[in-house]
């Protein structure tokens, strides 16, 4: 505004990126590849929140019952974030990509949700907190660290919120397990069930398949110019 107070103008011209802002364009995933991964995330988060909700009625331990109910919502919220991200990645029918990474992943969820009896709380918690959630943490961390920090910022923002939940929920679940596993027989049960599920998960390769953490044979599309 020309108030005539001074003739000198302080320049407001600055570089588009501040010196401390080291974000860059190149990323490992194309839009299509990101959508595929996001669809796998949504499918797995849905299966997890459904399982946690269904199990609430089957566990007699009151503190576990309440934690499952709480975590059920966390994973439903994650599924919702991914559901809303899909149309932004050009997938206007989100259910089309809401699929498991592969047949083994589907089999893993069936095996994880198999325990129902009230005396199987250890098995239920092992499947979620010692096998599935660590895989989520791995896949999300790989995605966050390899996608474009500029073009895919919305996905990174969601992953950061979600990872906070995953770490908190993992800690809750692991502590519940440590409080329940109190005899050699419990240790054996927990280990056996973990081994059984882990074998299927290895076959699946992780939440998004063989390339869940970048070590699979499937090559990603290099982004950038």
């Amino acid at each position, binding site marked *: 505004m020309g108030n005539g107070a001074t003739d000198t103008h302080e320049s407001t011209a600055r570089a588009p990126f501040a010196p401390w802002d080291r974000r860059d364009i190149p990323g490992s995933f194309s839009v299509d590849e990101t959508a595929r991964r996001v669809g796998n995330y949504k499918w797995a988060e849905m299966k997890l929140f459904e399982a*946690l*909700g269904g199990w609430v009625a*089957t566990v*007699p331990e009151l503190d576990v019952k*309440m934690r499952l109910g709480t975590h*059920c919502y966390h994973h*439903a919220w994650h*599924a919702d974030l991914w559901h809303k991200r899909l149309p932004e990645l050009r997938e206007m029918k989100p259910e089309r990509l809401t699929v498991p990474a592969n047949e083994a992943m589907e089999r893993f969820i069936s095996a994880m949700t198999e325990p129902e009896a009230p005396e199987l709380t250890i098995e239920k918690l092992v499947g979620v907190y010692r096998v599935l959630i660590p895989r989520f943490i791995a896949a999300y961390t790989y995605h966050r660290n390899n996608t474009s920090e500029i073009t895919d910022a919305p996905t990174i923002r969601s992953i950061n919120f979600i990872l906070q939940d995953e770490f908190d929920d993992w800690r809750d679940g692991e502590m519940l397990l440590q409080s329940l596993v109190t005899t050699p027989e419990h240790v054996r049960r927990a280990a056996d069930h973990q081994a059984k599920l882990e074998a299927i998960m290895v076959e699946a390769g992780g939440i998004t398949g063989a390339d869940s953490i970048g070590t699979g044979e499937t090559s990603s599309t290099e982004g950038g110019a």
Partner: protein
Amino acid sequence: MRQFFPVEDLARDERFVQTNMAERMKDGRTAIAVEKQSSAKSRGATKRLTPERHDASDAARGLMHGIMVGEIQALEGAGRTAHDFAAGDGTGDTVPFELKLDMARQAWDEARHVEISAKLSDWMGTELGEFAENTVLFEAACSNDPILRLAGVNRALEGLAIDVFTQMKEFGDVAGDPYLEFCEDWMLADEVTHVKMGSDWLRKVTANDPDRRTKALEFQQVVDKLFSFGGARGESAESSFSLAKRFRELAGFTDDEVETISAMDAEALEERKEAVRKYRERVGADA
């Protein structure tokens, strides 16, 4: 894990004692005033749950324990509805994805309510399992039609929770217990949200299916009447709880619906009084 989970398999630790509603109502410590021959002194006195009632302490403790086990079942019911139905367009065995999300959110809310109720029960000097649990609430969450679950649980039973929490909030206020009043106020806010969820989804999912809507509303009325406890809820001073009309309106009940529930409560109260009168006649004749 099975798709549908029967009420008799609900998992509980050894402290819980499950019974049916009739047995639960026989507990003399209930908040729902039991008909007794009124003395000249008590004649005309209100049956509302207030600190002035001679049995106020036991009645409030029993009610809080009932709320806690009800919250456990509501948590279980919401979790099951999030699990039992696939995401779809709402027809057949499917529910909209967003409805599943709402049920998951409700599961979290109910988990907090269990936490709050457990703290409140402890605050009021009640041991877990000191009162029996009836599982009618979860039974209402066992229908194969998710819309009937919403009508029975979210609209009828969570609607009742609005009435009960309003009464308990007032009880806390009158009794000078800000801890109780604070907790009830927060739970009441959640219950209004849950009833509104039920109202909104009932209308959306049945928008093109009037028969299904009618069936759901009929089921809601059955549950409403069952849980009016023979007129224990109603406008009359003879009822233990009043109908929280304003909060029900916030939760999506129409004026007509509120009036229908009010009329049903009054009818249930008259039926109970008539049953008590006949019982007394019979006992008198036997004596």
